[in-house]
């Protein structure tokens, strides 16, 4: 890897292929590990349905329970801001859309660079604030281990390096773009091995919760 261009080519080529393979195979394995465990048939006479209430819980848990919101508004609002901000940067930045178009063959309208730029700043600021909260809040600090901080870093780096690349802060550009792509690959590789997996397992968890409560006649 003699030059920034070589580095960029490696990151976009073999490194990306490896990361993608780990990401896809890893997630499939993790999901299979869960669903193949199954659950015992429930012999108690049901009071309500499972399927419908399960689906409803998948949707309703997107909004916080009133008491939780009152007690922990920062956790709830911060969570919304950075998740939505991350998705906007990922899916509505025009160069990202062009890249995805070249790979997947589908495209959609993007947002202006100024808006995405502002969203990136807000997202980074929120992530930093949430990190400080994790370190200072008694419950979160108590629960947190190295993995929690590692996944924070994995979520933060793509936004930060993308921001640096867009503003041409570091030179040469191929180097900073390469670092940005590498940070995405870091995130992808970590996915199946960490709690980043919740991105794919939360619908399952919510469904089981809603289904088991629904069977007892309660909407959870």
């Amino acid at each position, binding site marked *: 890897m003699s030059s920034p261009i070589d580095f960029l080519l490696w990151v976009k080529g073999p490194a990306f292929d490896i990361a993608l393979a780990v990401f896809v195979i890893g997630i499939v394995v993790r999901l299979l*590990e869960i669903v193949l465990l199954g659950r015992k048939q429930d012999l108690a006479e049901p009071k309500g349905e499972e399927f419908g209430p399960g689906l409803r819980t998948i949707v309703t*848990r997107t909004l916080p329970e009133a*008491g*939780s919101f009152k007690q922990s508004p920062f956790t709830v609002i911060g969570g919304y801001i950075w998740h939505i901000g991350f998705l906007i940067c990922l899916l509505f930045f025009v160069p990202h859309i062009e890249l995805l178009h070249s790979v997947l063959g589908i495209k959609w309208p993007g947002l202006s660079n100024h808006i995405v730029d502002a969203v990136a700043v807000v997202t980074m600021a929120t992530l930093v604030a949430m990190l400080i909260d994790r370190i200072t809040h008694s419950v979160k600090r108590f629960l947190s281990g190295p993995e929690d901080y590692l996944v924070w870093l994995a979520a933060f780096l793509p936004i930060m390096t993308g921001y640096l690349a867009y503003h041409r802060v570091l030179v040469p550009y191929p180097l900073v773009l390469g670092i940005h792509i590498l940070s995405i690959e870091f995130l992808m590789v970590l996915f199946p091995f960490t709690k980043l997996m*919740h991105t794919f397992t939360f619908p399952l968890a919510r469904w*089981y919760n809603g289904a088991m409560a629904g069977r007892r*006649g309660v909407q959870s």
Partner: protein
Amino acid sequence: MSKATLERGLNALREEIDAPVAAFFSSCVNCGLCAEACLFYTETGDPRYTPINKLEPLRRIWEQEFTLWGRIKKALGLAQPVTDELLQEWEPLVYDACSLCGRCSMVCPVGNDIAYMIRKEREGFVASGNAPEGMKGASTRAIKVGSPMGVKFHAVQAQIRHIEADTGLEVPVDVEGADYLALLSSMEIMNFPEYIEALARIFKQAGVSWTLCSEAFEATNAGIQIGSSDIAAELVERVVKGAEKLKVKYVISPECGHAYTAIRWEGPNLIGRRYPFKVVHILELLDELRAAGRLKTQGMDEARLTFHDPCQIVRKGGVLEPPRNLLKQVASNFVEMSDHREMNWCCGGGGGVSANERADELRLKVFARKKSQLDELNVDKLVTACANCRLMLEDGLEEYRVELPVVGLTEMLAEHLVEDNE
């Protein structure tokens, strides 16, 4: 109970891991929101009482043995094993500081049913010998004597004689072919026999064919609370045998929260077969009688009163409307607590906490949550539908020096009964 060892405990934990458990652990991001839903945390501020933290032993088994990455880490010696020391350290968190109320399961943003997992985790604690003495005693008495409080049927007979002498009504026992078999909780037999009298009076008026069973009168299930499926199954089997012998169509779960969970929801799964009868909670039956015009009451209680939702009957049992429908028939000034129905706060003594003397101090401390809910309302009466809740509420109110009568809903309805003897 057979000899408890760490190995048996670990095996029990392994057996409890299913797809929901794996989905739940995979989804937790340590956001900490469950803490604010748990009265053991809100009233103490102790982060160890965060619901998801109480599951650390079960979580380790899942990660190390049910995920590929966890197995690799374990093989490389990077995993923290589940040891006797860990289970000992966690035992008070799992038994003293969790009433299985399930409130945390209602708020988790990724949808984790934490109470479902604590119930499962307790199986591993019992099998490894790490359960509180008070609950072990209750379980042993339930198996050997027939009741966790050591109540035998002659104690029930003594109460029946009193009731029959006082009211002139008959309390049927061992009547084959009756429609309904009524179960009781030890606490009703010993502390609140008014419940039995209320049943006799209401069923007389409504023309319900019912009976008690001398071999299966106890509805409570210490096995469910301590987390021993073997014990729980044996206790359920007694009821099923009694009901089958008397050929009843229905079994009535009494005003007791976990009894309903035991006989209604866990029972068929514990014994591995469906029942030849239906299980109804007493409030469900009374509400059916009300709707059919068979529960005739007169007069209204004008006191400002509220209803404490027993967790296992309401949030975990789905008996949401019957207590409201019934209360409205006899109370003109019924007000709801700030958090009610499926978001109600526990009395603090569910899930076996009340049978665990070691937890008394903590239980009374966290009762502050219920007290503050009651303070907001300024009520003159508190109604509930669980003998255990009722005892815990009375105990808590006494501790906080609050003068507030606590009554059972069934008994309250009986007081307003029209006795027309037609």
